[in-house]
């Protein structure tokens, strides 16, 4: 066991994989600096800086995967994927079907997401539910250093396209880049357990599409992912003081979705809250509700999500994103409702 930062774990796992498999190529804007250690070790052919042409290089990454490479294509922030999403929606995600199962595109799209540092609505989106709507696309979101490394390996082992989302509030170099570097006058609400933690000496992948329970509880299930897992865990501590035992599930993967894990928990608690930093409507929180209903479960339901464009002002942003306070509040409401 070693101790690593979230970003350090990704780099370490990726380096381990790159050393083993020369087909892994990292490409994206500024990767010679963003991944400077990989650049130094593996050279400019395998860590390739691109022009600001997301549509071209993401589309190229998909085709390169079809032709034998294992590209890790970096979209600097997931918000920018909007100029390139055709490569996923109409190409990578459909290839296996279109080819009658004869061809696949094992491309990993690595991208930073999430808010909490005051960049505003065009740089702080999550969009994992939006991407998961596309059949054929896998979407993973780690919340700890150990998962960050392991899920990177899982993504690289997967035989189809995967979007790997890295929350900026957990990745120290992003926060340094995005305004904390060069001045001591700001700080952000970084979850300690997410930013740094124990990791194995040798990286191994985690099972595909499996959630983990971060905290046991019998009164209420909280399903979450990314930074929100930590907000939920903190809220669960507050709730424990009120005598409410919340079970916190870290989904880790949006698609495939581990509905089994949620279902098992909700069968016990009969109360579900989804905490989702992506937009509330037409996304992950609704899908979980639908799948549980399809399984015939009866339960009380609530959700704490991002409801609208993320505002720039830090105080407005804090209100907009799922927070410990909002979760506690919503949990109380849910507990006040009779079990169905």
């Amino acid at each position, binding site marked *: 066991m070693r101790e690593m930062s979230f970003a350090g774990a990704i780099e370490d796992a990726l380096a381990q994989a790159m050393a083993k498999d020369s087909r892994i190529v990292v490409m994206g804007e500024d990767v010679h600096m963003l991944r400077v250690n990989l650049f130094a070790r593996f050279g400019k052919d395998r860590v*390739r800086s691109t*022009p600001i042409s997301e549509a071209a290089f993401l589309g190229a990454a998909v085709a390169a995967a*079809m032709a034998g*490479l294992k590209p890790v294509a970096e979209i600097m922030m997931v918000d920018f994927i909007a100029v390139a999403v055709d490569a996923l929606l109409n190409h990578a995600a459909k290839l296996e079907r*279109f080819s*009658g199962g004869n061809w696949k595109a094992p491309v990993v799209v690595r991208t930073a997401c999430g808010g909490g540092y005051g960049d505003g609505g065009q740089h702080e989106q999550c969009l994992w539910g939006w991407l998961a709507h596309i059949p054929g696309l896998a979407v993973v979101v780690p919340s700890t250093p150990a998962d960050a490394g392991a899920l990177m390996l899982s993504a690289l082992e997967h035989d189809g396209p995967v979007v790997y989302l890295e929350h900026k509030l957990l990745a120290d170099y992003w926060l340094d880049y995005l305004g904390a570097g060069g001045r001591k006058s700001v700080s952000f609400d970084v979850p300690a357990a997410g930013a740094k933690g124990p990791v194995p000496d040798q990286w191994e992948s985690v099972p595909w599409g499996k959630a983990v329970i971060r905290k046991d509880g019998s009164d209420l299930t909280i399903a979450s992912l990314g930074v929100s897992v930590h907000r939920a865990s903190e809220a669960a501590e507050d709730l424990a003081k009120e005598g409410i035992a919340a079970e916190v599930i870290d989904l880790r993967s949006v698609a495939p979705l581990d509905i089994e894990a949620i279902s098992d928990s909700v069968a016990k608690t009969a109360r579900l809250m989804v905490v989702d930093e992506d937009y509330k409507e037409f996304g992950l929180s609704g899908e979980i509700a639908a799948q549980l209903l399809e399984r015939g479960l009866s339960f009380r339901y609530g959700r704490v999500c991002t409801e609208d464009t993320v505002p720039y002002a830090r105080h407005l942003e804090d209100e907009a994103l799922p927070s410990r306070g909002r979760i506690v509040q919503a949990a109380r409401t849910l507990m006040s409702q009779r079990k169905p």
Partner: protein
Amino acid sequence: MEPDLFMLYRQMLRSRLFEEAVMELWNEGRISGEMHLAIGEEAICPGVCTQLRDGDALALDHRGTPPLVMRGVSLVLLLKEFLGSPDGLCRGWGGHMHLFAPERLTASSGIVGAAGPTAVGFALAHQHLRAGAVAVAFFGDGAANQGMLMEAMNLASAWKLPAIFVCKDNQWAITTRSASVTGGDLVARAASFGMPAVEVDGMDAVAVWKTAATAIARARTGEGPSFIKGCCLRSEGHFLGDPLVRVARHPISEITEIAPPLIKAVGKFSGTTLAARAESLMKITELIGTTVKEQYLVKDDPLKRLRDTLGAQKKECEQIEEQCRREILQAVEDALPGR
């Protein structure tokens, strides 16, 4: 270097006859969706495709049939795919707009412009895994205005990738004359990304072959991408059943359908000025006129041109013609026994 003219002729003819067979099946209602044929652009594909080797890759658009035919993909698998059969090339899941042949590293897309990034990705994989292999993108004059295609040309140039961008310029994007929505010249545009860009006579298979040879050699030796544009014809319109072609071919019946609402619209009280309305009508008439001209007056045909070049060698040509006819008939029979 000189191409083998008989080989070129054979490939062009196979493609033509195959697509004519497809047309028949389409007319019989056996093929669904938007069926885009490449009849009229056969000089361009073989000029490039006959120089490809194992390991080379192709990125195709919605007119992807001929390159697959020329690369030796089974005609029966192709036909069965068009027919939506579970035994088709893509098990009936792709159809004629989404043809995939992994062993030929050939991928199609119905998204205009996608051939650009796809070829670049193939070329990138070549650089790592298959030194000396090339990737070709086939696309149209309309696609040249799609951002991702322009980005792809820049990326290929910046990374010196073994890619060849081939623009089949039929001057149309569905019912739009490309010149009316394109600023500047496409060859200059491609050249501005820092790659050799040439215009070639797209009706002359030999000229295309020679131009492609230079571009392919350049790519194989690691000198980077090239751009080739050839003008060609679109004899069967944008897709089978193209309304403009229908009007051109059956003016009376079709115009009686289109004209009444149009005349009503032009005659409405409010709207733009009379002069502008007249201009609109002129524009429509002009498009129909251009189509009529392409249907009946432009007698040029890349296949006939090469046949004329081969003029004296009648026997060899007839033998090829007979072989191709038999091959296509057999393929249709195999795909649709007893039809």
